[in-house]
């Protein structure tokens, strides 16, 4: 019985096994490098897209998402948003907001989009929330703590820069003004340095 031999084109038969093995190894390196590089070097992440819109350490009420005002892809238009681009280079930051209804969330993100802290609205819990975001290095290096109210929780940020996002789903058009007013009350202010 004759064995069936796959007849490759002549030019393919010129490719040596060392070439294939070497290419596979380099393909693996390229694959890993590209995957790890995208979050660090990719131009299209949410932080870079919002960077010009958001002044540092200031909560900004974002325009309600519409086909013409949408700032980020896949952002639901049945919600209003406020955001703060934080920069902890000069110290900690106090974040205050109201989380009044189910679906409301206050989330902290790294520039790569990782969500390192989130607080959802919950029934049976007070809706006004306030906490201090501190740089991760501060507790280890700075032995003189900054002036932080004893009432505020402290959230340690793994990054110096990032985003605070407050999302408020709309319950209907009738609640729009009330929801917007609550979002505009949210704040993001640097903690005054200790004297």
């Amino acid at each position, binding site marked *: 019985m004759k064995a069936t031999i796959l007849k490759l084109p002549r030019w393919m038969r010129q490719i040596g096994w060392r070439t294939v093995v070497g290419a596979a190894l380099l393909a693996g390196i390229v694959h890993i490098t590209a*995957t790890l590089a995208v979050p660090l070097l990719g131009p299209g992440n949410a932080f870079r897209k919002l960077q010009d819109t958001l002044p540092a350490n200031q909560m900004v009420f974002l325009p309600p998402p519409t086909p013409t005002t949408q700032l980020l892809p896949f952002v639901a238009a049945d919600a209003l948003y406020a955001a703060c681009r934080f920069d902890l280079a000069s110290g900690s930051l106090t974040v205050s907001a109201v989380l009044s209804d189910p679906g409301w969330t206050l989330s902290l993100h790294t520039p790569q989009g990782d969500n390192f802290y989130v607080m959802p609205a919950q029934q049976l819990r007070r809706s006004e929330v306030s906490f201090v975001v501190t740089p991760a290095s501060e507790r280890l290096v700075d032995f003189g703590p900054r002036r932080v109210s004893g009432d505020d929780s402290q959230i340690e940020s793994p990054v110096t820069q990032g985003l605070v996002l407050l999302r408020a789903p709309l319950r209907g058009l009738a609640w729009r003004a009330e929801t917007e007013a609550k979002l505009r009350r949210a704040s993001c202010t640097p903690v005054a340095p200790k004297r």
Partner: protein
Amino acid sequence: MNIVGSFLINVAAFLVLAIGGGLGTAWYMMDTGSRLSTRTLGPWVTWTTAGRPDADPYTRAHTSRNALLPISSTLELTYVASTDSNGGRLHSACEYAIVMEDPEIAWWGIAAFDGRGNLITNTAERHAFNSETVMREPNGHAVITLARDARAGNWLPIGGGSRITLVLTVQDAAWAAASVERGAPKPLPEIQRVACR
């Protein structure tokens, strides 16, 4: 074939396999994902560690590349569908029905986008429903109709002439915890194609 020709063929094959293969597989894993990073439930796909600081590299690359700001998947899960329950590509030329059965979910939202994540222009200026805004049947279920032209009830306009992507967001810590173990505590809603033009 002379030795120079053989050398050139080997160099070309090496570059194509190494660069093309490396970048192509990386792009696929970031864009579509695999069982390592995503979970598929009918037409719905979720990135299981989205938003978490310990997310796998493919999920982090997917998040960053698509300019997403996901809430940690320990609290909220985002399911994306680009096909109906029979595997057909979602398209604005067709009409779809989705039945939400949600009495135990704390909060959910469903939104329609074009294939690139942009909101779809429509005169009704309606792009999404959530558990607070949707109209319910007497049994508590909500039927959402995706169609180009107006429909009674929960009509979600999907414009004309483009591919559609649906995003279902479920915010419920118990649901999220159960999803890590079993995929989803309850079946996700089916996307039924009603008719096409």
